[in-house]
């Protein structure tokens, strides 16, 4: 059972990003890996930006990483972000090595800093968010 989607803007679902979005609906982070040059790629594309090979395969990422840098976004004009401000937007280096921008949920704002470990928010909470969303990784997690 999924929780209400809370009114967040949603990405357009296309043939290209459907595995990624379907994966997240199951609580997984799926990223692309080029079948030819083996490079990981985010965001989803029809072709590998490294070698232009069009055979992009989907692999499940571990869903862990570390915060490289972040911002606390206070200024919003639309709900639900206005009520949830500040939104933590972070550059996250995944354990697989590639970086992406994603939201980090926390009730301990001062604990968010460069280098902290993060992990995917699990289901059922995950289903509230339209894109893969992270939280601080528990010390023994």
């Amino acid at each position, binding site marked *: 059972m999924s929780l209400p989607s809370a009114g*967040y*803007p*949603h*990405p*357009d679902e296309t043939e290209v*990003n459907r595995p990624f979005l379907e994966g997240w609906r199951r609580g997984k982070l799926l990223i692309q890996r080029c079948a030819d040059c083996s490079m990981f790629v985010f*965001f989803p594309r029809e072709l590998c*930006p490294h070698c232009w090979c069009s055979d992009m395969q989907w692999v499940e990422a571990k869903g862990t990483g570390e915060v*490289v*840098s*972040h*911002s*606390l*976004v*206070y*200024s*919003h*004009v639309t709900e639900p*972000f206005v009520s*949830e401000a*500040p*939104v933590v*937007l*972070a*550059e996250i280096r995944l354990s697989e090595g590639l*970086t*992406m*921008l*994603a*939201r980090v949920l926390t009730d301990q704002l001062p604990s968010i800093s*460069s280098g902290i470990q993060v992990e995917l928010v699990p289901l059922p909470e995950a289903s509230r*968010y*339209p*894109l893969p*969303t992270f939280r601080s990784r528990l010390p023994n997690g």
Partner: protein
Amino acid sequence: MITRDIGIIGYGSAAYHKKPDTSLFGYAGRAARKAIANAGINKKEIDGFCLDGSLGADTSVSAAEYLGLTLSWAHKSTAAGAGTLMSVVNAVRAVEAGLANYVLCIGAGAQDISSFKKRISGFTAAVSNYLAPHGYGGPPGMHAIIQRKHMNAFGTRREQLGRIAVHQRMNAMRNDSALLRSPLTLDDYLNAKMVSDPLRLYDCVLPCSGAEAVVVGPLDRVQKGKGVRVLSARERHNHPLGEVAPIRGGWEVFRDVLFADAGYPQADMDFMQCYDDFPIMAAMQIEDLGFCPKGEIGCFLQENTLTYDGSFPLNTGGGLLSCGQAGGAAGLHGLVEAVRQLRGEGGARQVPDATRGIVSGFGMISYGHGLSASAVIVERA
């Protein structure tokens, strides 16, 4: 190399407004009318046209129809704030190649804060699909990530970056056209309303409406001292490749060749007009163009006064941070101020004996940072 016989022979600005009182074409027309009058040419002589890339569905040709121009050369710039600056160089090359005699280059915007905030969720497909659903906060949300990274890597402090906003405001107080002209202290800057931590209100540019235009043509059409030649120009897109929030930009790639082509080093620049949507971006342009070593911008800012009469005159009209960011006009804003200075028309903010200077561009927010960097070195002709 760029021909030294063709350059900027006229300029014009449409007054900036916090809320638009006309359409984008309305603003463009105001700036264009002033620019051709300033150049002393007739509209019928314009046969080349460069439009900034922000005109939605319109092309440079459909815009030309709207503005009643018949053209032998039509161009539309790319790369947002970095590209409009480079469009002027393309115009010089078009005239040199004989494709046009006089080229009108225009950048315009008709927006206010609320329309801008609606637009930021859809800059590109990558933004609307993979950033907007997170509540990414638009350019401030992204640039806060960049600034924090720069602060962590080099120890850069807000007190240092704040000098950009504060000194540029002093310049703006001498510019009747700047939208923000009330005094700004470092304390005001440091304690302003939080926007995207670590960015506060005076770190963030004010989206507004307005237009800038220049006319490119043979320099002998205007009297000596009223033309501006382009000594060198470079652009770089997607550098560093694949980095989401880099603390360096394409300027570092072309810096050496840019100054070598111009025949003058950094020390011979009488001013710098850079694309200052945020102080951290101005700081990176100063670093990456070699005015100080990478990572040492904090000390550089502390040691220099950035006012029009200071040791490092930066954005002498107040820059985007005090004048406002009028959409596509922002990419020409610094160039028009440079032309004003080189012609000795800077009024109360005139840089003494301004002979040559550098103008740098930045633009094209997509998934992460602004993707494009550009710069030109210009000289009084």
